[in-house]
């Protein structure tokens, strides 16, 4: 039925194409191009701040009048109070530093090792063919499901969090660098070899610079993944970290502390994301592609 429909439609379209003069002019008033007027910056900022203040006020009022259950949702004033305690007498800086370190180490180790692994596939087609199924398997395993095992092997300290973060970032980097290797123009290699280049020269002067944009493009993804890995590691077993703080607060029904830890964590994530974006733009300028 659908096939018949489309064929008749096709016939109609053909008829119309052959007789353009027979199409009637559209009825009604002429339609104009829709135009959007841009708001001035102050108006945009006022709207943004307004939503935030309005939302927080509604939350606070709702909690005080009992319309929102403050036991489950807490309230802004309590969260602000907990936040100041967290930073003055609490473990804020220890937790932030712990999560930050495991994220950064995992990010660096995973990205570097993964990129090297991906680039290494250029050296031998046979080696790449043998290893590839394992890489694909590793990609399809939900790495977080391995986290309990990783904690068991590496203990509850920093190393296990770094290991989870590494596991998450490594495979992505490997596959991305390998995608770069596969996109390499064989004629480029031909040019190098016709100039009498050795394999090491081709690797250093062609393969690595060619794949760098691929590797750079994965940095921003990886910082997010590394943070996720660190937090999940802390969820499972840890003595420090923002992830542990969130879990602990949730288990003791200290909802205000949950919000505080999430807030601090988000800030940390944004700072690291901004730093990596900056790093990316610097590297891109150096690479020029």
């Amino acid at each position: 039925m659908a096939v018949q429909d489309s064929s008749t439609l096709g016939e109609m379209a053909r008829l119309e194409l052959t007789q353009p003069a027979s199409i009637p002019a559209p009825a009604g008033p002429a339609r104009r191009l829709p135009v959007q007027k841009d708001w001035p910056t102050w108006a945009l900022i006022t709207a943004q701040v307004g939503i935030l203040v309005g939302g927080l006020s509604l939350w606070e009022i709702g909690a005080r009048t009992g319309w929102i259950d403050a036991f489950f949702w807490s309230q802004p004033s309590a969260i602000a109070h907990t936040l100041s305690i967290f930073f003055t007498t609490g473990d804020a800086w220890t937790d932030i530093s712990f999560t930050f370190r495991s994220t950064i180490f995992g990010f660096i180790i995973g990205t570097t090792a993964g990129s090297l692994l991906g680039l290494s596939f250029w050296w031998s087609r046979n080696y790449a063919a043998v290893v590839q199924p394992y890489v694909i398997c590793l990609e399809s395993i939900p790495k977080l499901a391995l986290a309990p095992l990783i904690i068991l092997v590496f203990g509850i300290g920093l190393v296990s969090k770094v290991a989870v973060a590494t596991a998450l970032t490594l495979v992505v980097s490997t596959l991305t660098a390998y995608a770069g290797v596969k996109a390499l123009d064989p004629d480029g290699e031909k040019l190098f070899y016709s100039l009498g280049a050795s394999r090491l020269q081709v690797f250093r002067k062609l393969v690595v610079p060619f794949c760098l944009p691929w590797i750079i493009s994965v940095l921003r993804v990886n910082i997010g993944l590394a943070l996720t890995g660190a937090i999940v590691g802390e969820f499972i077993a840890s003595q420090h970290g923002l992830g542990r703080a969130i879990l602990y607060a949730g288990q003791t029904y200290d909802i205000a502390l949950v919000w505080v830890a999430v807030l601090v964590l988000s800030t940390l994530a944004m700072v690291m994301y901004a730093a990596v974006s900056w790093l990316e733009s610097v590297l891109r300028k150096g690479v020029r592609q």
Partner: protein
Amino acid sequence: MPSSAPKLCVDDVSMTFKTPTGVFHALAPVTLSIPQGRFVSLIGPSGCGKSTIFNIIAGLLEPTGGRVMIDGIDATGTIGRVGYMLQKDLLLPWRTVLDNTILGMEIQGVRLREARSRALPLLHRYGLSGFEYLYPNSLSGGMRQRAALLRTLLFDTDLILLDEPFGALDAQTKLQMQEWLMRLWSDFGKTVLFVTHDVEEAIYLSDEVHVMGTRPGRIIATIPIALPRPRLRTSALTPDFVAIKERCLKLLTVDGTAQETVNQAA
């Protein structure tokens, strides 16, 4: 002995590929002899094995039979003996024009500073001044080809292979580039083997044109071009030029059915 030997001698080189359906003869035994300093073109229809010959001469492909002699020395299957410019310019986007042109020297182990100081005057002389420190993606097609050609020339070999270097350029730019190449060739005195689809280009540039046929790829005629140099654009209108062009076109259209004897002139 090597001093009297031709610059390049392709000696009975043949190439067959094994395919699932059988054996494919890409090149029937081909013999070519090119003296020092000559400009020689290969023309022929697609699939006549022009690029195969180039890959074999450059050592990127091992021939099934025959030898490649450069300066009288067997160079079959050895790389880095000839400058080879492929159809694409293959400029590295992360290197400046200057650093692209010194690639060959760099690979041969010349120090960067020395290589750059050798390349700079040539870039200035051959129409790339002002572009030295730009990246290839800001260059026009003609300029990119110039950079690629200079890279090939700066790679210190006497023999260079050019595989359709102007194939992708518009007609106007192509004419300019041909003039430019002629200037370069007479300045450097290199031996050039040139592949093109353009009969007029081949005749205008060359001392000798080899016409190739397909299935298997082979040379069906060798036509010496005795037109005086330097050649003018208008020489394409002279009866001699037109006669050669007519002969080439006829050879290309009948392609091998009317096989001329190789090396008529010799």
